Each structure stands twice: as structure tokens, then as C-alpha cells.
């Protein structure tokens, strides 16, 4: 079974430029997540999709970040314009089920991440 794919793996841009990241989840996984991992911190959820609908985007800086999941499969995360503090690893994850029920096991599978450096 193929894992979660992300591209590019590395990106260096100057501040105020725009950048886009792509994620292809595991086939059949309904839920897709984008996390931001700043150096020295744990990942933080930016946005969660179930199929092509947004479940949670409360931590997404909507003035500069946007994300979409066309047809409930692939997803792109965009930053425009980038700031220095956006330097981080952007992780995509997917899971089979949507909202977990009590006693219902689930697991989030993570991609390798995209390391963004904003100079």
C-alpha cells in the first residue's frame, strides 16, 4: 500500500513570495490533515478535511494560508504572501475514517513533509 505522498520535499523562498504544497493521501482515506511543525515544537493542525469539506480550520491563518481538496482526494496548501515565521515543516496526514467513535480505532498516516525555508 502506497503511503501519503507530498511534494516538494524542500522549498526555499523569499518573504512575500507565494508557495504551494501538494499532498496525495492513501487511497480510500476520507480524512486529510495539514499540520505545521515549527523547529523544536510538535506539529500543530492547520486544517482538516473530510472528503472535500472542511471540518476544522480554526488554526489556519486565513489572511495568508489557503487549502483545498478537490474531489476529495489530492490537496494543496498555499501560502501567499509568506512571512519569515512560516519557516517550518508542513506535514500532510490521512486517515480512513472521519470522526472516530468511542472504541473505534483509527490512525493518522503521515507523509514525509515539506520543509519550507523563508528568507
Amino acid at each position, binding site marked *: 500500500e502506497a503511503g501519503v505522498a507530498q511534494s516538494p520535499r524542500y522549498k526555499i523562498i523569499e518573504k512575500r513570495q507565494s508557495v504551494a504544497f501538494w499532498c496525495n493521501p492513501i487511497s480510500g482515506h476520507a480524512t486529510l490533515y495539514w499540520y505545521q511543525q515549527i523547529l523544536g515544537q510538535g506539529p500543530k493542525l492547520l486544517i482538516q478535511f473530510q472528503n472535500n469539506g472542511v471540518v476544522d480550520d480554526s488554526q489556519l491563518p486565513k489572511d495568508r494560508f489557503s487549502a483545498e481538496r478537490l474531489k476529495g482526494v489530492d490537496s494543496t496548501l498555499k501560502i501567499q504572501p509568506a512571512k519569515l515565521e512560516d519557516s517550518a515543516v508542513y506535514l500532510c496526514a490521512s486517515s480512513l475514517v472521519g470522526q472516530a467513535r*468511542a472504541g473505534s480505532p483509527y490512525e493518522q498516516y503521515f507523509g514525509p513533509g515539506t520543509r519550507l525555508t523563508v528568507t
Partner: protein
Amino acid sequence: AQSVTQLDSQVPVFEEAPVELRCNYSSSVSVYLFWYVQYPNQGLQLLLKYLSGSTLVKGINGFEAEFNKSQTSFHLRKPSVHISDTAEYFCAVSRGYNKLIFGAGTRLAVHP
């Protein structure tokens, strides 16, 4: 709101020694608990999870963790570590709505 505290940012240990990585959480409701491992330049891999039932959970690579509700802890242990266990370890909590809240991570450094 939930939060996760990993009490040690770095843990150095010699090869074949036992290790414990500490994790405490705060939540007013029942939660699911997880440990993930992250090797350099890679994504996160699930080591083990506690959803319900037995409080002692066994995971991959010889790791285990014990859920202690009264102390709100979920410490990760391994009786004998290898050089290959050198990595960053993250404790995470979820209320079951799939959003994971992570601790800041513990860097385990295994020395020969």
C-alpha cells in the same frame, strides 16, 4: 482545552539501557493517547495508542506505555534501547474527533 506536556526535551542514554520518556496531559474529558516517532527528515510513525481497555499498551519496536488516569500520564518505556532508536518522540492526545494535539517532543539520543 487539552494540552500535552513532555517533561524532558532531551534524554541521553547508553545502548542497551532502559529508557522512560514522560508525558502528561490535561483534559476535562476522556481522551485517546498516542506516541509517535520521527526519524530525521521523515514524517511521523505511530508507535502505539491507547483508546480503551488495558492500561498497558504494547507497540512496535519493543516500546510500551502505561496509561495512568489518576496521574494523567502516558509514559513511554523500553527495557533496552538500540542506536537505531535515536529519534524525536511525540506524545499526542485526541478527543476522538481526529484532531491530534502534540507535545513539544523528546529527543532520544542513544550512545554506544
